[in-house]
């Protein structure tokens, strides 16, 4: 009973005194969806530096990467948030998949271990973010259970979501399929790699963070 009252008081007071600019913006999605590419694009545009390393090998990001204070200014409006780039969430990790990229068995096993720990860390952070950008690779089937599970969990936690269909520069990209899979959400198609449609993304980002306040 005391715990319930304590939690309730904590929620009320943290809500009352939550300062603007304390928004924790999480980047979620499957491995290789382009989370770090988009995080890098934002950091390059507004801070002038990268956040993390990007590669074609799945699970390149295996630890949470945080950029403490990102400030975006557009049309006289100012947006400040903490950017949290999470390792890609997957339901399986097979070390043999990394062998195809030229890693030794030992390196592949070590990478697989780190990847599983990264996934657990990403899941834990779901309780600690205020707004989330879910990255979906628009060249792949959007109905993957990982996407559905991530979004379902965010809805259950009442965390505002923006879906970003990435890789629209590629021939196989199908943004309409992503929109069809998640008709209740705003879907923005971008190319994090070459910056295509990034202006519309920033517009939607302002709306997303506003919902989280």
């Amino acid at each position, binding site marked *: 009973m005391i715990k319930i009252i304590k939690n309730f008081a904590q929620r009320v007071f943290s809500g009352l005194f939550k300062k603007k600019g304390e928004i924790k913006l999480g980047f979620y999605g499957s491995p290789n969806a382009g989370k770090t590419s988009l995080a890098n694009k934002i950091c390059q545009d507004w801070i002038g530096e990268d956040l993390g390393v990007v590669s074609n090998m799945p699970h390149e990001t295996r630890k949470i990467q945080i950029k403490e204070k990102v400030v975006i200014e557009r049309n006289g409006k100012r947006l400040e948030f903490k950017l949290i780039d999470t390792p890609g969430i*997957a*339901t399986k990790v097979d070390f043999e998949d990394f062998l195809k990229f030229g890693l030794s068995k030992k390196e592949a096993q070590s990478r697989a271990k780190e990847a*599983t720990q990264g996934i657990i860390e990403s899941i834990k952070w779901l309780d600690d973010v205020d707004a989330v950008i879910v990255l979906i690779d628009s060249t792949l089937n959007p109905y993957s259970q990982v996407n559905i599970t991530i979004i*379902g969990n965010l809805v259950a936690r009442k965390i505002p979501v923006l879906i970003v269909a990435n890789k629209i520069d590629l021939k196989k990209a199908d943004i309409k399929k992503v929109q069809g*899979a998640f008709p209740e959400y705003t879907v923005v198609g971008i190319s994090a790699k070459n910056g295509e449609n990034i202006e519309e993304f920033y517009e939607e980002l302002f709306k997303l963070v506003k919902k989280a306040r």
Partner: protein
Amino acid sequence: MSKKKNKDKKDRKKDLTIHFMPYSEIANASTIERIKKIMGLILDNKIIILQGKLKPEEEVRLIENSMTLIGNIEGFQGIEIAAISGKESENLGLFNKVRYNIARILVGEQDAITIIGPASVVKEITRDPKKIELMLSRK
């Protein structure tokens, strides 16, 4: 006799077992009990066809649980999972949507089907809005 038993055991390992789990089997179970039950069958190399759907928080716990087992249980690579609903509530009118959601709260999502299998057996499950395709591993 014991040789025959061992042979049977070996053969059984190669067999593909599909376990049908009616919703009543998990309806009153807690999240921990549900996950324990599912993981027990997965580790036994069985593909589960579950009547109904897990809650999003249960799905995420299932993934978390799987990740902790990878590397600790020989040959375990995680899971494949996909769920499909008979009715997608977003396509219904307001009245039917309310009715559907009330029914869901009362009896659970029994019109859904969830397929869960060990990744070493199930290579891939692809889901389109109205169909699920299951690709098995040749290993």
